[in-house]
């Protein structure tokens, strides 16, 4: 039992940090540009596939460096040539553009790399058990993932709090129009933010690729959870995104390992109800509903606290 809790906590924190890598970029983009980038998870997927291809040719460590840069460059291009043009047609058009983009990216990935999973391996230098807790080995690669995520988080914090561009971005997070009024090259900042945001998602893809299955449906699986994180955490709030990522990561991981159900707690229903919908609800376990818990959270937050847990703005 204790083993389960410890492992689940470790895994939950890890998953949460991975989510944060992606959600940080998405939150900043959402707060500054006002557009919820549907294609954000697609950049995560591009990062994984670029990482896979580059690691096939040059090795894992060059891939870790080059793949995010490539994905970030594509992101900047998308902002400059696509989003900026659509901006004048309103938020709906921007959302739809990113929606179509996500679709097309998935198709292109399928064409180039196929529809099945690709063999993205953990680099041999990291392929050993880091420590043994109770009787389970915890892989070193997962510790590496944790370290990279924390390093990036710290780096992001430093950049935001200590550099000039970071201050501008912080300002734009809460008062985007004012920043424009103050004379900063808003277009260039937007492009930079979009590029860095997507590069961060790509980093998450490169390091998550070997651990999870690298396949063309990656984006579709993780995409909706990402939105939940951003909305729950709150607009304009990076700490909110951090808290929400950890929360959702832990909730999902723990929920999956719990077998509790109403029938377990209160005993089985009488057989008269056996073939009705009540029986379904009675016997469903928490593990089975684990994937929909984030959406329940999303709907509740949007109804009762639309600015999110730590958000500072509503729109």
């Amino acid at each position, binding site marked *: 039992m204790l083993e389960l809790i410890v492992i689940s906590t470790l895994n939950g924190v890890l998953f949460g940090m991975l989510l944060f890598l992606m959600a940080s970029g998405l939150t900043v983009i959402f707060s500054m540009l006002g557009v919820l980038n549907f294609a954000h998870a697609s950049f995560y997927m591009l990062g994984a596939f670029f990482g896979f291809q580059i690691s096939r040719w040059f090795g894992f460590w060059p891939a870790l460096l080059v793949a995010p840069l490539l994905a970030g460059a594509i992101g900047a291009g998308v902002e400059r040539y696509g989003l900026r043009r659509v901006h004048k047609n309103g938020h709906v058009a921007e959302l739809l553009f990113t929606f179509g983009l996500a679709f097309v990216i998935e198709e292109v990935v399928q064409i180039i790399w196929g529809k099945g999973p690709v063999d993205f391996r953990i680099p041999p230098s990291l392929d050993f058990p880091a420590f043994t807790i109770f009787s389970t080995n915890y892989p070193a690669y997962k510790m590496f993932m944790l370290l990279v995520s924390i390093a990036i988080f710290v780096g992001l914090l430093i950049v935001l709090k200590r550099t000039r561009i970071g201050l501008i971005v912080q300002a734009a997070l809460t008062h985007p129009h004012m920043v424009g009024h103050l004379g900063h090259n808003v277009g260039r900042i937007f492009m930079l933010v979009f590029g860095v945001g997507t590069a961060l998602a790509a980093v998450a893809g490169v390091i998550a690729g070997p651990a999870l299955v690298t396949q063309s449906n990656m984006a579709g699986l993780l995409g909706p959870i990402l939105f939940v994180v951003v909305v729950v955490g709150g607009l304009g709030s990076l700490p909110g995104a951090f808290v929400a990522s950890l929360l959702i990561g832990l909730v999902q991981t723990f929920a999956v390992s719990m077998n509790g159900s109403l029938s377990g707690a209160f005993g089985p229903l009488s057989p008269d109800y056996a*073939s009705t919908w009540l029986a379904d609800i009675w016997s469903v376990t928490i593990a089975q509903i684990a994937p929909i818990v984030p959406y329940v959270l999303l709907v509740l937050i949007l109804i009762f606290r639309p600015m999110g847990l730590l958000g500072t703005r509503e729109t």
Partner: protein
Amino acid sequence: MSEIASTVAPPLPATSEKLKFYAIWMAAAIVLLLLPHIFSSGGSLTTFSLIGISIIFSLSYNILLGQTGMLSFGHAVYYGLGGFLVIHAINIIGANKLPIPLPVVPLIGGLTGLLFAALLGWVSTQRSGTAFAMISLGVAELIASSALILRTFFGGEAGVSANRTKLLKLFGWNFGPQIQIYYLVATWTLIAVIAMYALTRTPLGRMCNAVRDNPERVQFVGYNPHTVRYLAFCFSGFFAGIAGALAAINFEIANAAYLGAQQSGTVLFATYIGGIGFFIGPIVGAIFVTFLSLGLSDLTQVWQLYFGLIFIAVVLFAPGGITGLLMMHRPLVKAGTLPKVLPSYLAALVPTLAMIVGLVLAIETIVHYTVNPGDDSHIKAFGVNFDAASPYIWAMSVILLLAGFLVARKTWAWIGHAWDNATSVAREKGIAT
């Protein structure tokens, strides 16, 4: 300066306008009646039935998107729930031999859609814009996932099936053959389209437009935007339920895919590509997208890529959709200056077509190499034979793409000039603004 307020009511429409208005509806009804006599195979009847269902669904979606400005990613929920309840209803009616004939059954679907929209709508419509989109996404994912948990009602991933021929016969029809289903769908489509058009002409319809354009001002005028959105949501759910019911009757099966994200995405595509600014837009979009999704997958293996590219092109270059593009020409037609722009269109046609052909060639060749490397390199795409391994083809695709793009750019500029001229003439005549 004229008076600010007039003391006389605006004149009633002239008889000729009234005739024109009703003539359109009569013509539509006649076309629907005659269609199956021209195209009578089973496949085309199924296609028409699907188009009819898609028209109702897209129009219901446009009540939200085009008229009230609410972008929903989960509209398929009401479609799907309507479909499921109708399947269960058909099973119950058939088992108990209730005197309810099949043509009345879509109403049950509509009422289901209305019920769930009323239940979920109040909290969903509290805000609009991105927050509403997110709520709709969350609710849709919730319900779609619950469909796999509540197995008894939703039947798991196999879904629930019914036999539509077991109901009370109407005029000797048992609704087994596809032609009878076509007529059922066609009748309901006509009724639904008339109803939804009538809705746009009511004060509620106008207030929906107002809420879309300026919700704050609506509050000042004395209406609650939340209530208006909620009512639009309910109507939209009602008609979506009718569409879902007809789909369930057509396929005699309802499964979790009815509620899923893909179904919501398809209706979004169809409505947006057709054009959200005009009533007829979603109709055009529904027809276009249904044909595309049925026929494109036979012509090329990567039809989804083309789908996505078309969607992005519409979002980037033609945000008004197909009807938006066509309707842009209305002032020119009225001013009689359309012939001014036509030559530039013709001139642009060739290089633009060349560019597109080059792109398609490039895509299909790449697909051959990455997806089917072991196959014979003589492939056929869009009905045209070519050899994907020949360097001649690669060169041609690159040339067509680049040269086509460069030449096309010039012709597009020419179109712009021609438009400027034509519009200024129309402006002088007082037709365009």
